């Protein structure tokens, strides 16, 4: 296994920090995907990939930031854009997807999903509420 040539001047502590964060992040992504394959219902499965999108992404972003900052001896923080973007967009997509799945299950009359709660009913009758795109 060859070493990485451009990282030859990387100090040992930085290499260790980058290694720990890389293995931690990718291990979290792998754990989330294992749960994604193994869990039984969709509403359980929708939780599993968030392990990768929260700390999996965060840890790999931190590893990349530390690596390029130490290597170029100046703070390189533009990777934080990916972290912020993924953190902001993942709840939005998963809420939309869970809403769509719930709507599909309810319209099929699937008995495993709960019915519309009474608190939601007047909000749905008075048009689209502001919080639901």
């Amino acid at each position, binding site marked *: 296994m060859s070493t990485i040539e451009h990282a030859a001047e990387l100090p040992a502590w930085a290499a260790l920090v980058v290694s720990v964060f*890389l293995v931690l992040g990718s291990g979290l992504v792998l754990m989330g995907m294992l749960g994604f394959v193994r869990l039984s219902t969709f509403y359980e499965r929708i939780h599993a990939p968030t392990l990768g999108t929260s700390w999996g992404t965060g840890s790999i972003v931190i590893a990349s930031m530390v690596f390029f900052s130490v290597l170029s001896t100046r703070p390189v923080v533009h990777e934080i854009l990916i972290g912020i973007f*993924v953190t902001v967009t993942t709840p*939005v997509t998963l809420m939309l997807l869970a809403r769509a799945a719930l709507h599909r299950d309810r319209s099929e009359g699937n008995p495993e999903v709960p019915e519309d709660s009474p608190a939601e009913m007047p909000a749905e009758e008075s048009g689209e509420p502001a919080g639901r795109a």
Partner: protein
Amino acid sequence: MSHVILACSVVIAQVFLVVAMWLAMVRMFRGPRAQDRVLALDALYVCSMLLLMVFGIRSGHTIYFEASLIIGMLGFVSTVALAKFLMRGEVIE
């Protein structure tokens, strides 16, 4: 010594992410319903984005950061579009 550890951990991270992509693809082909496949596609996007970031660390170029940012944005937009399609397609039916 520490550089050997770094090289090993980069390879380990790449292997983990590729295995995670395979698992997402298993769910995408096997997933019983459409929402499982959409969720698997979203997870696949996230995995490929992280794989590109790890590849950027391995190769030392910051160009891969921009590619992974674009992948993240396209993944968000496509998942939102597919979720809207899932919700509205059955309303029309």
